[in-house]
């Protein structure tokens, strides 16, 4: 295996994904529609009610949640598109090229992460437009965290993809996996008081929230933005270090299992 060849191929695969996105105007516009709807409508109603009596800015809370969720989801969905590619598109050609399967997956994760980051830029601009305030260091911190969120979303997509046979199946199951996380992961409303009542339902919801992978990505982004747990008074659930550790372990396991399953399937197909 020639490392320079594999790295160049990885760059080429990733670049192709980015180009595909940047040339698709309707997709770029679509990128903005959902987050805008979520931020303005869900955030303005549901989120506002949930955040009542709290000391942090609700708009900023919702914006950061949707910002993280959008990039995470986009990366995950992007990886799943590899299924479609394999079925009817150009990637047949990628799969018969003399490349390691790991290179193909690496290129795909890198490419979809770049696409998600490009989408993140659009959503970020939208946030500034609706009056989200931040200083330069806060804005700069969003960059490395966004990259981690994208890679983490890619790992989730990879695990899902390795378990699905077709793009259609994956697209059908994805909303069932995503929608609960939208609420349980604390994207638009705080989840710090889920277990407060102490009854079975509350405790179950709190448990489900804790096993929602998205929760940790959203919380990491908020934690870094708000500068830790304390100043945010309930907006942030855990320290960035904790969230980062969870993401590293969970993302690492997802990626390892997803890659192993995918490569094995490729061999025995």
């Amino acid at each position: 295996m020639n490392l320079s060849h594999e790295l160049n191929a990885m760059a080429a695969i990733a670049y192709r994904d980015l180009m595909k996105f940047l040339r698709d105007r309707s997709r770029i516009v679509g990128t903005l529609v959902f987050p805008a709807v979520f931020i303005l409508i869900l955030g303005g109603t549901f989120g506002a009610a949930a955040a009542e009596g709290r000391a942090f800015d609700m708009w900023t809370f919702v914006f950061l949640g949707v910002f993280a969720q959008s990039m995470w989801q986009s990366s995950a969905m992007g990886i799943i598109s590899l299924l479609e590619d394999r079925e009817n598109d150009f990637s047949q050609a990628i799969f018969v090229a003399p490349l390691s399967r790991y290179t193909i997956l690496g290129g795909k994760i890198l490419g979809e992460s770049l696409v998600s980051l490009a989408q993140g830029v659009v959503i970020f601009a939208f946030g500034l437009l609706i009056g989200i305030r931040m200083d330069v260091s806060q804005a700069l911190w969003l960059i490395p965290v966004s990259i981690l969120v994208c890679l983490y979303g890619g790992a989730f997509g990879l695990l899902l993809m390795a378990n699905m046979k077709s793009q259609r199946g994956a697209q059908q199951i994805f909303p069932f996996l995503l929608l609960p996380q939208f609420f349980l992961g604390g994207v638009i409303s705080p989840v710090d008081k889920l277990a407060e009542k102490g009854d079975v339902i509350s405790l179950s919801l709190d448990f489900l929230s804790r096993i929602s992978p998205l929760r940790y990505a959203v919380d990491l982004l908020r934690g870094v933005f708000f500068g830790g747990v304390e100043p945010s008074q309930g907006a942030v659930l855990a320290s960035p270090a904790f969230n980062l550790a969870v993401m590293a372990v969970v993302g690492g396991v997802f990626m390892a299992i997803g890659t192993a399953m995918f490569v094995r399937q490729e061999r025995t197909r």
Partner: protein
Amino acid sequence: MSPPPIIRVDHLVKRYRKADRDAVADVSFDVAPGEFFSLLGPNGAGKTTTISILTTTLAPTGGTVTIDGHDLGTDAAGVRSSVGITFQTPSLDKNLSAEENVRLHAILYGLYPWRPSYTLMPGAYKKRLADLADVVGLGGDIFKPVRTFSGGMRRKLEVVRSLIHHPRVLFLDEPTTGLDPASRRDLWTYLLEMRQTADTTLFLTTHYLAEAEDAGRICVLSRGKIIALGTPADVTASLLERYVLLGAADPAALRAELSAKGIAWTDDAPGSANVRVAADEGDVQPLLKSIDTPLTSVRTVLPTLEDAYLALVERDELGAREEAAGLGEAGIVLGDALGEGALVDAESREVIQ
């Protein structure tokens, strides 16, 4: 001594999960370097399964495959770098320009380092691209999006792309499906030219028998097994008789004369006035000279590969039905049909038989 085969398929077996029979059942054949080899067979015969295994997208259940010295099981990457593939379904990225498609392919095959734009690519790449674009008549259109191309242009571009890394073997999986006759002829002119200049081995699967007539050897699969292997002419000749169809105003007199002169004849069809006399091209003139009964019609019948192919497949399917009914296998022996230089070893012969 003939060079070692570039493709060696030995007792290849593929059974899909949950299937009750093998999609490819113990298939063996060799292909010589530079040969034009064609794999034929009805839908479901195992052609696409075979080509998928040979191009590393499907794992075999048993048997071994070696391509250009690389073992498929242990060195898939080696096989991949030795082959080029034109897929049955279009495999160009319609979001990219033709040049970007070719560039991506070249980088994936490790020919050049990745660069984000054409201008930054090395001169060698630009030259090769321009040459290839000229050959297929794309010219300046090479920088246009693929979605603006016609079906024929796309196919040509796919062929260009699959040749850019100088593969030793080019797999063409039904390359002309969906093309109009003019585009099909155009593509074949180009392919046969490429074969001459680049000395590439062609491995074709097709439903158009006329395309396989140009092949050095054809291999007919049916129900996962090889039922014929040899040159198109040999396969045709071994299966179907060449004959002259004769008609006379007095059919009884013609039959009597033929019998009297010791010329074997058969009725063209039960109840038909015409008679068949077996004859190759060279026999026609002496035959006609020897007949005194006035003839009203004479037709020389030389079966085409398509006739032979249909007869083969029909026979095999009949055999399958008889086999199912417990009447034993209807085998077709083509031992003599294997022309000189045909790289078929004893084991393959057994399989054919």
